[in-house]
């Protein structure tokens, strides 16, 4: 063997050794993260049992009910369990009924539980009451702004966000980022998200699930605007914190789909569904299966999505409605849902869904009018712009 061949072998062996070492470190870190996440969930479950018992023993304790509600909300966020959200609202109402004054925690649990159920008008009533009690609190100001954004009351939202300016308040910063994105300042929104994410790393008192949430937001945003590298980086950081997070797996599936990496997309969509069932993830799985040529599996996923969404008693999640439209399923029902949604909330995403549903029913004149409302704030979300292009092209 000559010297250069030996050199190549040595370098190869070192590289392979380095790869194995790095791989082992990643596997170990993920196992540790999984164990810690599991421990956090166990502690939360024990805390819930503890505060349930305390609330049962003391029928006059607003504080115990407030704390119990916040724990249930936390579990609802981590697991997506509907029953926890409903229970959080019930407990928070009991807390606020016992003591409205000096019970900011109870009122916040109630507001967030209502927002989680998309009952934004009721949430606004609670948030505005908090705002009256403390108009200088940027967290509450931005909370009002966020709800107004959801309702499409942009002028009112503008007044709230104008009060915020430069801030280190993480909650206010994340909500301000949403405002900037909706009003077309994509780079401003991105900078706020990246800054909040970097400060969240060292923030005191955040759980793993919450730290992962900042990575999730960065990843979603980056993916939406086509910055795949930034999305990948945020996803890797998120998985290092919370390897089983169903929301991270759903975004990872979208990232893989955008690269036409069908096996990866199917794997992430499957893991997301395994951790938390969401019809939107079924749509991702269907795209992945179609991409790798398994039309029967794709059809099974779409059929399951349709069956699951159509059985929902209330308003459908917009992601579900868009997925149904993209699959050409239940189009009339989606249009009816979009009309109902718009009667309640006139935000840009409601107009976009309505426009897209009209387009799918052949009413492109109506779709163009609706789309002009969707783009009125100056939003530059590529999904909305692509819908607008398709609708415009049918003129």
């Amino acid at each position, binding site marked *: 063997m000559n010297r250069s061949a030996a050199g190549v072998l040595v370098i190869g062996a070192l590289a392979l050794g380095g790869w194995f070492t790095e791989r082992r470190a990643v596997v170990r870190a993920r196992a540790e993260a999984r164990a810690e996440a599991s421990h956090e969930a166990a502690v939360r479950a024990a805390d819930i049992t503890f505060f349930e018992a305390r609330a049962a023993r003391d029928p006059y304790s607003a504080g115990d009910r*407030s*704390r119990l509600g916040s724990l249930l909300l936390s579990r609802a966020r981590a697991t997506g369990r509907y029953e926890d*959200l409903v229970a959080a609202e019930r407990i928070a109402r009991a807390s606020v009924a016992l003591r409205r004054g000096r019970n900011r925690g109870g009122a916040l649990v109630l507001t967030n539980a209502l927002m*989680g*159920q998309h009952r934004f008008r009721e949430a606004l009533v609670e948030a505005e009451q908090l705002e009256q009690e403390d108009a200088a609190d940027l967290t509450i100001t931005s909370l009002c702004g966020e709800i107004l954004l959801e309702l499409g009351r942009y002028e009112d939202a503008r007044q709230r966000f104008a009060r915020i300016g430069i801030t280190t308040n993480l909650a206010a910063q994340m909500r301000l980022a949403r405002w900037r994105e909706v009003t077309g300042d994509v780079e401003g929104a991105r900078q706020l998200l990246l800054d909040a994410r970097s400060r969240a790393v060292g923030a005191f008192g955040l759980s793993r699930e919450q730290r992962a949430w900042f990575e999730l937001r960065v990843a979603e945003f980056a993916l939406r605007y086509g910055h795949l590298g930034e999305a990948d980086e945020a996803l890797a950081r998120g998985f290092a914190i919370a390897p089983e997070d169903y929301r991270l797996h759903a975004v990872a599936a979208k990232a893989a789909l955008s690269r036409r990496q069908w096996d990866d997309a199917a794997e992430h969509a499957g893991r997301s569904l395994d951790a938390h069932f969401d019809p939107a993830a079924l749509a991702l799985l269907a795209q992945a299966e179609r991409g790798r040529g398994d039309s029967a599996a794709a059809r*099974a996923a779409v059929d399951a999505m349709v069956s*699951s969404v159509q059985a929902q008693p209330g308003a459908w999640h917009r992601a579900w409605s868009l997925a149904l439209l993209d699959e050409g399923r239940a189009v009339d029902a989606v249009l009816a849902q979009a009309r109902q949604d718009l009667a309640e909330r006139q935000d840009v995403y409601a107009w976009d869904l309505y426009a897209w549903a009209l387009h799918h029913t052949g009413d492109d004149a109506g779709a163009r009018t609706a789309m002009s409302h969707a783009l009125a704030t100056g939003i530059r979300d590529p999904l909305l712009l692509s819908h607008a292009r398709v609708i415009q092209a049918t003129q």
Partner: protein
Amino acid sequence: MILRGLLVLLLCRPAPTHPLHSSSASLTDLGGGRVTLSVRIFSDDLMATAPGGDSAIATYVRQRVRILARDGQPIALAIVSIARDGDLTQVTAQGTAPGGLSGASVQHAVLWERYRDQVNLVRATLSGHTTTLVFSNGDPPKALR
């Protein structure tokens, strides 16, 4: 502690949730035709559907989650454990397909009699490769791939 709870609330509200009906199972090929099946079902639904304790749960799961060998014969499943984890019950079973899992199929039909919109999933890992099989109410057994 309460301050920490408030911080949790202020940062990120829950994603919108709905009362969705689903159960997930994982099926792992241990080699030589041996298989482990682990099914997760919401405990309240399970108690309502199969009242009568662990023996009733074991019987119900064996009836509703079937692995069929290549010749269409069901593979006998022995219940290894029934464990509660929060509001979920996890039932683990093991069995052996005499001719191996090649050509085998699976059906996950729990709670179909309770919810018309029940969607069940099976994450099947065969030869190190994992796929997700989706079962809507009434779907026939599906080939393991």
